[in-house]
């Protein structure tokens, strides 16, 4: 039930992002969701793409430091309090959210949020037991 995310180390400088999008564009990779975490001198670009293996390969060939990380895609009711209902369950079970960001596409009536949890497997069990929908990777890549 996990989704594979690609993270790329980037220096905080003009043109850094453009180099990444250039490599992906030439390899015909479609970016499905992204988030950029930044500090004063470096950043981490996190991507969900339609073809993880190819994206990783072309980025590494392009000289980037790349890592694959397991994240979790959760359907969130698109209404006030929707995200809160998920976080409340996680908080009750002391699951830590390292980071999260929203997916561009919707799944039916629901929004999709990408989470990085510690610990991941436990978080997935808790979400499912509490009636939330966790989307498998194949479904997310092709949304």
């Amino acid at each position, binding site marked *: 039930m996990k989704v594979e*995310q690609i*993270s790329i*180390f*980037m*220096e905080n400088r003009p043109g*850094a992002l453009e180099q990444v999008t250039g490599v992906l564009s030439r390899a015909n990779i479609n970016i499905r969701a992204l988030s950029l*975490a930044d*500090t004063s*001198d*470096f950043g*981490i670009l*996190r991507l969900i793409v339609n073809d993880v293996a190819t994206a990783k390969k072309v980025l590494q060939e392009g*000289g*980037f*430091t*790349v*890592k694959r*990380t397991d994240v979790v895609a959760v359907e969130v009711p698109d209404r006030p309090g929707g995200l809160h209902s998920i976080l409340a369950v996680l908080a009750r079970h002391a699951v830590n959210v*390292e*980071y999260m960001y929203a997916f561009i596409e919707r799944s039916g009536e629901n929004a999709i949020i990408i989470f*990085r949890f510690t610990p991941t497997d436990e978080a997935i069990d808790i979400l499912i037991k509490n009636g939330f929908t966790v989307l498998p990777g194949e479904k997310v890549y092709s949304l």
Partner: protein
Amino acid sequence: MMYNEEFEALPREVLEALQLKRLRHIVERVYHTVGFYRRSFDEAGVKPDDIRTLDDLRKLPFTTKNDLRDNYPFGLFAVPMSSVVRMHASSGTTGQSTVVGYTRRDIETWSELMARCFAAAGVTRNDIVHNAYGYGLFTGGLGAHYGAEKLGASVIPMSGGNTKRQIVILQDFGPTVICCTPSYALTLAEAGTEMGVDMRSLKLRVGILGAEPWSERMKLEIENKLNITALNIYGLSEVIGPGVSMECIEGRDGMHIFEDHFIVETIDPETGEVLPPGEQGELVFTTITKEAFPLIRYRSRDISRIITTPCRCGRSFLRMERVSGRSDDMLIIRGVNVFPSQIESVLMAIEGLEPHYQLIVDRVGTLDTLEIRVEVSESIFSDEIKALQSLEKRISKDVKDYLGVTAQVKLVEPKTIQRFEGKAQRVIDKRQI
């Protein structure tokens, strides 16, 4: 003013006779007490008896920093530990630091040499000395302290750091003499001015400054900002510490080398060939009175030039010009000696780090800055900011803990550190001193 006129103004021929007598004695002694010297003399095919004139010194092999490291920690001590009363050491990880020892008589010698330095600066027992050299393993603090006490001056053992407190003490205690690195003198001048203190109207009269390279331009700036006479002092812990040579206030042209304790040679750093006095080259020192840690032909790696003309102060000692550079890659950052290889060994001790790094040295205002750029490989990359930041902090802390120097760590993308002919340029020194 001379502290020990009998020895400081010896006629050259008497001085040289004394040097030869002491040299022969020390060569004989190290040959029989230090395994390293016996082996290296034997390899060179020289026996102590072959040293019959001062020129015969060049028959002996050089001693290098690597020899000191190879014999870490006490391998070059020439006396049993029971005779050693003090140790000092350079910074470094195990096996990279160099350790020096002193007998009671060595401390006496060193104190006298430092007392000579103070006297050469016109300091007397009526002066108050603000000693802002670091106390501890570094030789600066205790060296200056013992010398000033020996002279009978009143010492304020400030050590380094705590700049605001230093300004308060400079105002309240009214020291007339300050000892610190030249860059710290400027830091004090600027910090004091920021605190609203008129740094030109303190009681300070003279500064005894050293432990890092500085220029005539910096000297003028210090003299102007603190309204003092700034004098240059030279030394290195391996040879004894500060007090190997000192600029006199009468001549103010080069530093007198205390030749009754040290023999100086100038060599071509590439070939090792001895150069005639007056030519620029690497200074090589032989200690001829030290007991615990004698050094034979030690390559200082400092580039300078010997001045042979007599000085108006009356000292018969040769003088050396201000050190103009190094014949190796040692960096001096805020008075701390650092080799790029030492930083590399700290980095390599951290799991996953690859040896792709670069050191950027700069001077911001009056303070040296060190930035360590480290390429992020996949083995250390994490998709969490906090993991990368804690890696930066860890590198910074390890460098501080092992080498005593504060560094800013910057993670950079792979292959962004310039490589020349496949080899990275490790150090970029942007300082204009």
